[in-house]
């Protein structure tokens, strides 16, 4: 029998984390953001509990501003047998018409941070799986696999529980919760390799295609629907793809010809910029942006 590879070990560790949470939490949920990391996490969850159906629902905290291709995949996944998909939209953001064009950072705060807290409180979820990886960002590099949140969903980096061996302390008091990151030790390359090895379906936006785009502040943005205000700009067809996916007005595309996973991996390996660079969200408050968001309850 061959020795376990790096990918085998990561897979086994993630499955262990998923099972440990389900065994000990009262009401777990998986945050499903439709991106490639969510796709990998969902795939691992299926493996962890097979032949049983997923022992928890998926939760999509919707901002109403995702790409249409993302909604299409989400609805397809949600319709699969054994999948219980909850879609939550912050009613206040909805009624106030919060959008990325007029409201800046408030958009992320209300739709994502507030929306997530509301959804977790509404359904009483006490453990939420997220697809974050430690290689993404510096404050993530220090977060535990089981990240304890107080009653207000706040993360306190100085009061993290020590996490030893593969022993996770899932205990908490009423009202407190856990964010659980099964992909903590994966890198972006691991994720792509695994997608390829396991033939996992991902949103087509990751692959290069001709798409209508405009250029703003050095970012190439896709004009995904008619809600995008064009100040005299004419959308230009460019062959582009996305390295990370979020709200379409906030996700920068890269010009690329990569239309297979292999080509994406090759391009990614030879590129000189990091994955999160195309995201506007990290730049809100200087270098400590993500750390600040996490303390406020962001995933």
């Amino acid at each position, binding site marked *: 029998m061959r020795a376990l590879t790096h990918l085998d070990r990561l897979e086994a560790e993630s499955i262990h984390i998923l099972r440990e949470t389900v065994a000990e939490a009262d009401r777990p949920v998986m945050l499903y953001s439709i991106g490639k990391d969510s796709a990998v996490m969902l795939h691992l969850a299926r493996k962890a509990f097979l032949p049983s159906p997923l022992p928890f629902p998926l939760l999509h905290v919707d901002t109403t501003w995702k790409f249409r291709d993302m909604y299409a995949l989400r609805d397809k996944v949600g319709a699969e047998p054994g999948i219980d998909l909850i879609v939550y939209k912050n009613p206040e953001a909805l009624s106030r018409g919060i959008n990325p064009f007029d409201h800046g950072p408030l958009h992320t705060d209300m739709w994502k941070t507030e929306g997530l807290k509301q959804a977790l409180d509404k359904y009483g979820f006490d453990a939420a799986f997220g697809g974050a990886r430690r290689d993404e960002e510096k404050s993530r590099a220090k977060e535990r696999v089981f990240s304890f949140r107080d009653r207000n969903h706040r993360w306190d980096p100085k009061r993290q529980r020590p996490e030893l061996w593969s022993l996770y302390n899932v205990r908490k008091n009423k009202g407190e919760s856990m964010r659980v990151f099964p992909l903590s030790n994966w890198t972006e390359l691991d994720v792509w390799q695994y997608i390829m*090895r396991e033939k996992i379906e991902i949103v087509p936006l990751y692959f290069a295609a001709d798409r209508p785009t405009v250029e703003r502040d050095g970012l190439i943005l896709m004009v995904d629907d008619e809600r995008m205000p064009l100040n005299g700009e004419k959308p230009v067809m460019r062959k582009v793809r996305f390295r990370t996916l979020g709200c379409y007005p906030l996700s920068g595309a890269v010009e690329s010809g990569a239309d297979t996973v292999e080509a994406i991996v090759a391009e990614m390996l030879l590129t000189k910029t990091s994955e999160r660079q195309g995201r506007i969200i990290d730049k809100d408050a200087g270098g400590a942006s993500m750390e600040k968001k996490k303390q406020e309850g962001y995933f």
Partner: protein
Amino acid sequence: MSRPLESEEDLIRHDVRTWLAQQEAKELLRFITCGSVDDGKSTLIGRLLYESKQIFDDQLDALESDSKRHGTQGKKIDFALLVDGLSAEREQGITIDVAYRFFTSASRKFIVADTPGHEQYTRNMVTGASTADLAVLLVDARKGVLTQTRRHSYLAKLVGIRRFVLAVNKMDLVDYDEGAFDSITADYRAFAEQIGIDDWIAIPVSGLSGDNIMSRSDRTPWYSGETLLEHLDTVPLEAAADAQKAFRMPVQWVNRPNQNFRGFSGQVASGRIALGSEVRVLPSGRTTRVDRIVLDGDLDEAVAGQSVTLTFADEIDCSRGDVIAAAGDPPEAADQFEATIVWMAEEELLPGRGYWLKLGTQMVTAMVQEPKHEINVNTLERLAAKTLGLNGIGVAELSTDREIVFEPYAVEGTSPNKVLGGFILIDKLTNATVACGMINFALRRAMNIHRQHLEVSRETHSALKGQKPAVLWFTGLSGAGKSTIANLVEKKLAARGRHTFLLDGDNVRHGLNRDLGFTEADRIENIRRVGEVARLMADAGLIVLTAFISPFRAERHMVRRMLPEGEFFEIFVDTPLAEAEQRDVKGLYAKARAGELKNFTGIDSPYEPPEKPEIHIDTTKVDAEEAAELIVEKLLSRR
């Protein structure tokens, strides 16, 4: 993010599939770096990431601008800024928590736990080391082996790391002097022998200039050994040793979607298992054969490290917390141990208190005795100790409320038994992880101290009195009405010819427990003694009433466990704090509010209400007479 080495770029450009196949075959090494504050640890890791091309242009741009703002290297790039993640750390110029970094070489992928060197963060170092196969110890070539170097070596060894690299850093600042390197190496050799580290090498490096990190430096012509990366690429992995041991798999989750499938999910801790292998389920000891090994398809075999689901040939009981093991070579089960404990919380260890103990997938209540000794990690001396404080390390005996399946943590000549030998302790009130521990061996004390066999049994006592014994345990705030109601209950029981005895908190403190104060530790001992006395009286056939605040759930639970099922009645005399304080029969609340009484329950010491009391008396709804009647009724109606 893992990026390829420059030499691989051509292959990626022309044949990414082949390159990916090579990547897939890579192994994984997890290691830890440790050093004291100024040894240049972050710089070394930054250098490893930089040289193995883990840093993108946008990150490098940010790094250059950060280096100018916060850097300590003048105009040079400050690699330390790459890894000092949290803004608090940047402001203070220190590393405060374990951070995990990822990089790759041509043959391995690496996960680095970067841990700080400050004394107060021993727990972080232990945390980082717990998953590592190897430790890289940084020493400053100008300073040599320091107290901290010894401490880190000891801690790494304590959590089972067998392989060490002594990276003698800042060689550039001693002009790459061979003599300086040799003298540090000799110092460390003496220490390593003393604590039993026998697998180690020393490498002269400079994190700042990159000497002997990835490639051999021509500034150290006198050094002919491996570079740091060469060593990391070839050092043996503990996974190989784990696979050689006997099969063990703790059951995490029972997978039962329907009548036709009953599987047991878990991660193989050690050894391997094949279809048809005979296994033993512990602690029950039943044996069966493995029928299927399921991942997404069926496997013929599974090995240490894999997460799988097993099904059995026979329908035998098996649930979370059980351990599936090689039938012919199973681990032991016991309920008393000697363990080495690392205390990780601000609140010190309370000997005698019940903590949750999690080992593998087993969760039990454990009581830790006073430590046999504490270890001074700087001098390795054994010191007498009554407790353990934050970052204290000691050896203590502990007992669990039921048997657990375990293996000794450290085993000579092979990898440590991390899964069945390592545990954490969890505070029952705050749920914080307060300690970790490593089992040294099981004690057989309970078997050696045989109980005297009594000719007149508990049943005889009970039958003579014509009643079933019980302990009515009244708990609630001071002034809640516990003693008043307990007195009424006793009167009613006496009137019906029952044999009773009332143990009152205040009275007991004048006699049996007059040596105890009101600290948390003393309160626990107070309740333990009362519990023991109540149990003896129940053995004598009495109905015992106790009226104690007994504020902690853990201690009430401890007493409950002393008694046979159905004989312990937890009676929650539920009076809101405001109400009790307003009554203030003994004037104690006033004193506590005035600061004259310390550790007063409800004021500056917590009360943990019962979660599922047998009887719940809401004194705002019923008076003492009604409450007493209700309790008597409930007691006498039991079968």
